[in-house]
């Protein structure tokens, strides 16, 4: 499962660059939805929570994993949904 640290770091640095560059100009109306959408994506930790919960490890680990899974799922599901609602309101045509 483990890959050399330097490869992880390479991927990390490149992804940081993409993150820095991908967002340049954002109209103020979209600040809040963009924040919310990005927040939902940061719920990617759900992937880690799935592994902690499902690998059949000790009870304590599984419990921690389950808690993490619930929190992360709230973040992901709630995040994308609230972003969608926001966008609907911000752009509602009369």
């Amino acid at each position: 499962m483990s890959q050399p640290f330097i490869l992880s770091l390479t991927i990390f640095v490149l992804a940081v660059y993409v993150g820095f560059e991908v967002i340049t100009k954002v109209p103020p109306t979209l600040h809040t939805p963009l924040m919310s959408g990005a927040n939902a994506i940061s719920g990617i930790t759900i992937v880690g929570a799935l592994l902690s919960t499902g690998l059949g490890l000790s009870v304590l680990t599984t419990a921690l994993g389950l808690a993490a899974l619930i929190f992360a799922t709230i973040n992901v599901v709630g995040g994308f949904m609230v972003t969608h609602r926001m966008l609907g309101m911000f752009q509602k045509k009369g």
Partner: protein
Amino acid sequence: MDTQTIINAAYLLAAVLFITGLKGLTKPKTAVRGNKIGSTGMLVAVVVTLFDQQILHYTMIVVGLIIGATIGAVLAIKIQMTGMPQMVAIFNGFGGIASTLVAGAALLEVTGGGDNPGLQFLMASGISGLIGSITFTGSFIAFGKLQGIVTSDSVLLPGRHVVNGLLGIAAIGAIVMLVTDPSAFAVPYLAICLLAFLLGVLLTIPIGGADMPVVISLLNSYSGLAAAATGFVLSNNGLIIAGSLVGAAGLILTQIMCKAMNRSLLNVLIGGFGGEAGGAGTSADEVYEGKIKSSSAEEIAMVLEDTQRVVFVPGYGMAVAQAQHGVKQLANLLEKQGTEVLYAIHPVAGRMPGHMNVLLAEADVPYEQLIDMDDINPMFAETDVAIVIGANDVVNPVAKTDPKSPIAGMPILDVGEARTVVVIKRSLSPGFAGIPNPLFAADNTLMFFADAKAALQDMVAALKETVDA
């Protein structure tokens, strides 16, 4: 192709979807699609993880997913529009604590089993615990401030910089302990989390309520970094890519938001803004003394009769008074008498980006009538009446004239160019920036001192009478 290759390929696909989604969210036309693309990326990442051959127990996973999805969905559906920034804060806090828990679980499993998992694993766990926990409590303070549970004033504890510094050093010490003696991992890891919980509170509490959107955006960047750190713990590229992507994008967004408010990030984080009133600059008395023309609904109704163009300029006060429906009613009356009605939207009017858009959309104001600052400013010269409803800083000409004022350099709405300016607010109290506003004392300005909602009702009634008369 082995499973690991497929999983990594799926993570790459998810990453591409995240990038495309984020990009989409930056443009009005593609925002809805961007959000959908981002959520598809998450679906890909989750589904492919479930195919990991190492996963043995699906019961717990299903339980966790159902509980989490239900809570998330209910919260997202129930929340009022104006409560959305708070909601984002909460979600974000949950994401942070989830990263902390995952790193803790990994630490428990690997190190608890007696192995020394190496420097990368231990460092990353410590960092994940630290950042995730700061995000958790910080987000909840932000939530509390916006919700009015915690005072939204800037709370400046004496010696807080020293205290924060010491806490930070202690947390780093705990990480060093964790790395040097991984066998006794529990104590340092818990110490890291507790210290970070405290730090999260102390770093957020000095920041005024109105700066909370910026703080939430910053904390959002943190939770991305926490996820990336967890990715280093698990050597999971999905977490590394998505986490660092959001970490970086969140930081840029934070800066963009600061810039729109004409603040520096450092200035926001040090706090103390939005708490005290006035201070520097000319005093309110000097500005207003003897120059204020107070007016009434009836007088304003007469001014509004037979106008060609009226521009509404909403601000924070309209949100407080929930006066948007009254505005729309008045606008309907005006349009019936043949007046063109427009709304001037300043990028930082209100207390969150898009605040005015949301409220006016709620009152069914047509989208085409909402005009952005840069487009409306040249139009004020051909405007009969500009009605300022609970806006203050965003129409304060001092931003242009006094380079020492706290809003110096902020672009403003040039309402003074209109033939007549009507300002509705309850008193001569300052707005968010705490400074007096010479616009209120201008020759062509009429002040209408009242709660915005009540004021608009009165104006609607008065205009009806004037027209009927």
